[in-house]
């Protein structure tokens, strides 16, 4: 787990154009719910990075990452639309959340994106470093994970993404500290001004709080009781920490931060993209209340 955390934070720190956190959640879903056949088909090539798989959750008309009203599974085929899927254009496969026929149940299924029954349309986004696409399925062959639980996979992806967000936030903090030690105004380095010092102290505090939450979530990943609450806490605090860090890093850099001459904008864009792609902050905030309300005894 320590190694995984290191890789994920590093991915975040360089704002890499990948969806590594999602890939890892996908592998875990296959490991957990895949039939021996399905594991044979996918796990090795995915884990080795030979094949890529996108996670397709969001649907038009509702902002929940759990929404499965559009894409319907019936007799091995799916039809419907998924929106704003990161890295779909680079992937051969997609893990898609689907609704089971007319029931209210939802499951995950694997779909071959190269098939003619899948139409991908690239969309312009605020984060130009990752390509994002809408997907339309029309009777596409879908390989169903029978016992799968969409919320669990979304929560795991959120936990892994939290580590990426933390890596990015720490990088922002470091960029800000470096700049504050070097840039001068009014005869001294700006790192001497309390406005800058206190902003960076706040940034540090947020990051450490988020770091604590991510560590707990990672630790409880296989804990039957802990994961629903703790993955939500990790996600929520990571969104907040990175949003503040990325936004205020630009502010520390001043006019220079508002141009492509500095890297600040990459993190500003990425902070928003990561905040939106697995359910926005309010979705997770509601989940925390829900789970905290249920839990008789949690680790607080």
């Amino acid at each position: 787990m320590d190694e995984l955390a290191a890789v994920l934070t590093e991915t975040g720190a360089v704002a890499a154009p990948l969806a590594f956190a999602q890939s890892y959640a996908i592998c875990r879903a296959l490991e957990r719910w895949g039939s021996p056949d399905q594991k044979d088909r996918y796990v090795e090539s995915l884990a080795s990075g030979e094949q890529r798989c996108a996670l397709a959750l969001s649907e038009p008309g509702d902002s929940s990452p759990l929404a499965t009203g559009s894409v319907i599974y019936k007799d091995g085929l799916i039809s419907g639309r998924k929106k704003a899927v990161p890295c779909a254009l680079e992937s051969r496969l997609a893990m898609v959340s689907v609704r089971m026929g007319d029931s209210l149940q939802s499951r995950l299924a694997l779909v071959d994106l190269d098939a003619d029954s899948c139409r991908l349309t690239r969309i312009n986004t605020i984060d130009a470093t990752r390509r994002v696409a809408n997907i339309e399925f029309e009777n596409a062959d879908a390989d169903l994970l029978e016992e799968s639980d969409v919320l669990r996979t979304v929560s795991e992806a959120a936990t892994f993404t939290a580590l990426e967000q933390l890596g990015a936030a720490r990088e922002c903090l470091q960029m800000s500290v470096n700049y504050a030690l070097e840039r001068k105004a009014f005869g001294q380095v700006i790192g001497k001004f309390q406005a800058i010092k206190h902003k960076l102290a706040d940034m540090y505090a947020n990051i450490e709080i988020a770091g604590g939450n991510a560590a707990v979530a990672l630790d409880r990943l296989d804990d039957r009781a802990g994961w629903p609450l703790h993955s939500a806490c990790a996600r929520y605090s990571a969104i907040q920490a990175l949003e503040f860090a990325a936004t205020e890093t630009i502010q520390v850099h001043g006019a220079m931060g508002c141009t492509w001459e500095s890297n600040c904008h990459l993190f500003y864009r990425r902070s928003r993209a990561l905040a939106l792609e697995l359910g926005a902050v309010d979705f997770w905030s509601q989940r925390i209340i829900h789970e905290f309300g249920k839990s008789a005894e949690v680790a607080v």
Partner: protein
Amino acid sequence: MSAFDTEVYRKQARDWLEEYAPAFSKAATGERTADEDFALGQKWQKTKFKAGYGAITFPKEYGGSEGHVVEKLIFAEEELRFDTPQYFNTSLGMPVPMLIRYGTEEQKRALVTPALRGDQLWCQLFSEPNAGSDLAALRMRARREGDSWILSGQKLWTTWAQYADYGIVLVRHDDSLPKHKGLTMFFVDMRAPGITVRPVRPLHGQTSINEVFFDDVRVPDIQRMGEVGAGFRVALETLMIERYTVSDVSGYGPSVRDFMQLARSVTCGGVSALENPAARQVIVDTLVQDVGLNEIHARALQSIAEGKEPGPEGSIRKLVVSGKRQRLAAAAMDLMGADGVAIDPAAEMNESFQASWIRAPAGRVAGGTDEILKNTIAERVLGLPQDYRPDKGVPYRELEG
């Protein structure tokens, strides 16, 4: 001016705008290249100028209307309702009034009217890579050579330099003096040999800002504005000319009403986003700030119309507006969920929360960072002392770095 007169003026301005402004909107002209857009901006300025709205407070001898400053503010407020192309705010806000104050008769006769009419555009060359918030730290040198000065160095963040005919420029003529004392102001012909304009790619798409390089540019002494060594004082003085300006209370982003519409139209897990606690909080906070700022603005207009100074509370506007806009835009994107990342590259920033969000950081920096604005409020309004300034009174060349 009486309240009655201002309302009559507002009515006339609104009627005129409703007749002429729509033809200059995106809707009427469709997609435009950057150069077409600037040409349209010039045409719009000329149209306003002919009708007496392009140079409302300027002297009649140059074609101005010699109107009350409150008329200018009212017209600007009304014009905000239309998406007219805006290029001349800086030009007419500071450089041209400076020319009227410091230029020779001949210079003024030759240059003021074309500037007011929109035939020519003036830019303002102040900031440098190492002189942003701390403008007086600027490095660009001027050395005397007979009747001329030779200017060398680099300016940064110069808005519309690529279209400018003239610019006012602040330079260091003597680095043995303390930083504020060694500065002098000139105006320069932007086509003079040695000047190179290079666009800077901003965080958002549109390129309005530039780097401007001066490589031994010769400027006749007659283009000096104010005394040698008075540059910083002249710059500040001019910043005070009609310093009360009109800005959009939403910070040129979508309004809280647009946000409310959005919240009504989307759901999360089947629940209306209007039930979203964070969204409700943003609506309330934004609305209350808008109501407060609008009241402060109305009070200021009234003071100005009565020939009095507006109260100091106007100083909070930029601070409040730019933070508010960033929060509102981010919250709107949150409501949209995964779709919130989608951006229409052609969208104006007041039409799209994404476009507004991407430009928001510049809003919190340009024209005074949040931190500088808070310092200014603390010092000028509340009477608290200036921060420690180790550079005070020290010869510029002895300041390290």
